[in-house]
């Protein structure tokens, strides 16, 4: 059978090819079915869509600009580089696109309590923000390692009225926070809405989060047509769970001339074993409600991910990415901690934009590719977040990085 569209997934059972699904404890199954049914209704409801558009515009600040990065382009000397400025959104990253959508759904379902997991803290901050706006109780689970390296975001969440629960299990990172959030959800099924921050988890989350993030790609399409009169030639985005990437990619999946590149975190290098590149260094398995590529050992035990960027520090990846990798529609590559740091500094100095370390992974890939491409090649990078939260980490590496600056 020929693939007529790459944009129709998942099927009714939540599968993208053999990835995705609903691998959760029975306690949660009825909730997940309710959520899927309610989301199906909401996304066809003009009143819901109208309210979503209102908050996207007046609260989040959309549309975010598609900015021609002239100095980056000059520096690379090849492709014409555009930055999709998601870091200009309220709360400083793309995460709020999804949170606004989910909180409207939570309110529609009569839920009174919001829980979420967070890695870098950006999803936690975005969740705490919308919970404050809608007056709902908010509890954020965050690993202790991440709490240590993202103090500012922890404080922001507290300012916004959220309770931050430190998770000590495992290595105290995003995976462990997600386990704990799932445990809370199983315990508080009636009152609680679990706001997953990425395109992973059981169906309908991967599709729902993608739909809320797809505003990034839809805007990019219109803006590029407006500015250049044609579609971009390539798209580049970083991938942890994969929500900013999926948001940019999805509206372009059927445009076969648009080359799409996802950038995973290679940490100290894939061969070192200390990385977060599930597609490039993992194999299929089942975790957190979906079948996808995972970092795991020979016994199926999950291996802790490593990345300098807390937001990419996750041993899995959204199932739709696993499928797009499997069928070859999207190219998935990886960038090391050092490459990302170097790109971070270049972006600061060349464009006056301090990017998130996550987004710096996408920029590092651009520095590799753009110089070899023709000047009429239009390349869009999702600048998914701003780097204010990463000051502590960057300062820590500053001395050893000075040669790059």
């Amino acid at each position, binding site marked *: 059978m020929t693939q007529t569209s790459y944009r129709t997934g998942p099927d009714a059972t939540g599968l993208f090819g053999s990835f995705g699904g609903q691998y959760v404890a029975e*306690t949660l*199954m009825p*909730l997940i079915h309710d959520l899927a049914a309610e989301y199906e209704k909401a996304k066809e409801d003009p009143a819901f869509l109208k309210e979503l558009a209102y908050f996207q515009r007046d609260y989040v600040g959309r549309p975010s600009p598609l900015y021609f990065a002239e100095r980056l382009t000059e520096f690379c000397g090849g492709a014409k580089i555009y930055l999709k400025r998601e870091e200009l959104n309220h709360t400083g990253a793309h995460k709020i696109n999804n949170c606004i959508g989910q909180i409207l759904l939570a309110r529609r379902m009569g839920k009174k309590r919001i829980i979420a997991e967070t890695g870098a803290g950006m999803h936690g901050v975005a969740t705490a923000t919308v919970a404050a706006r809608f007056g709902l109780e908010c509890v954020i689970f965050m690993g202790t390692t991440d709490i240590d390296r993202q103090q500012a975001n922890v404080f922001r969440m507290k300012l916004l009225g959220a309770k931050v629960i430190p998770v000590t299990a*495992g290595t105290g990172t995003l995976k462990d926070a997600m*386990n704990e959030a799932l445990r809370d959800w199983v315990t508080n099924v009636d009152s609680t809405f679990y706001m997953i921050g990425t395109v992973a988890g059981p169906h309908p989350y991967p599709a729902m989060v993608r739909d809320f993030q797809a505003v990034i790609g839809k805007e990019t399409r219109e803006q590029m047509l407006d500015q250049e009169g044609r579609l971009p030639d390539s798209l580049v985005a970083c991938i942890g769970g994969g929500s900013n990437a999926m948001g940019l990619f999805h509206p372009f999946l059927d445009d076969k001339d648009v080359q799409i590149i996802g950038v995973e975190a290679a940490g100290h290098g894939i061969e070192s074993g200390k990385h977060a590149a599930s597609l490039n260094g993992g194999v*299929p398995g*089942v975790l*957190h409600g979906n079948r996808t590529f995972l970092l795991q050992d020979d016994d199926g035990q999950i291996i802790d991910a490593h990345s300098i960027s807390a937001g990419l520090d996750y041993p899995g990846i959204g199932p739709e990415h696993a499928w797009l990798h499997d069928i070859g529609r999207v190219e998935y590559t990886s960038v090391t901690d050092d490459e990302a740091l170097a790109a971070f500094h270049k972006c600061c100095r060349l464009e006056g934009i301090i990017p998130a370390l996550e987004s710096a992974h996408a920029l590092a890939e651009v520095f590799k590719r753009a110089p070899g491409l023709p000047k009429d090649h239009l390349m869009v990078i999702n600048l998914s977040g701003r780097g204010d939260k990463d000051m502590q980490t960057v300062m820590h590496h500053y001395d050893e990085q000075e040669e790059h600056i």
Partner: protein
Amino acid sequence: MSRLQARFAELKQQNRAALVTFITAGDPGYDTSLEILKGLPAAGADVIELGMPFTDPMADGPAIQLANIRALAAKQDLKKTLQMVRQFREGNSDTPLVLMGYFNPIHKYGVPAFIADAKEAGVDGLIVVDLPPEHNVDLADPAQAAGLDFIRLTTPTTDDKRLPKVLNGSSGFVYYVSVAGVTGSGSATLDHVEQAVARLRRHTDLPISIGFGIRTAEHAATIARLADGVVVGSALIDHIANAGSSQEAVKGVLGLCAELAEGVRGARK
């Protein structure tokens, strides 16, 4: 007749409930865990659930999470867990043994190989927490075709509409998780359990075992009056966590098992 069917039929004739005990394989180490496992039937366990360790036990509370961590730190893996079952079967041919855990280690092992090896080792059934009936094709169907029972969890959130879907294709027994929560968390009221059992009986003839939050002989006896089986896990495992030595762990677990067995056996007298 499967070992599970035989055991529940035998206990029904004796008019008593089964004591179903859960321990994590390899906790705190292979040898001690095997010694506990071998000692459980004599201490009064009627059915044994043996946990397959996993790094991310999302439906488990702190006690079983820590048991998983201890077992993995002692290098337990699925091959060793199957080996433990083989060694258990050398001295026991009638106590049903059910493996319980999460899907990923089985997925990695390979489903056909796992089913074949589990059968050969003497496993009677499987409980896989993150495989709801929506994913029967992944494991439940081929396991049952090979003669392994697939035991389903039903919960307070499983409503009447969903219950047939969950029970259809269940075999061995039905495990009712009496509270919405993680293992080891607070227990349900007696009223709730009574109503839940009545509701399940309307939908199935399978034996009904009840778990989550049962810690003492008295509590076990109360549940044993209502249900066909009483599942105890975290309370047993606490004796491993708090033990100063292997011998203390063995003594502690088997001691509590004997108390619980007494409670269960005396419940309907």
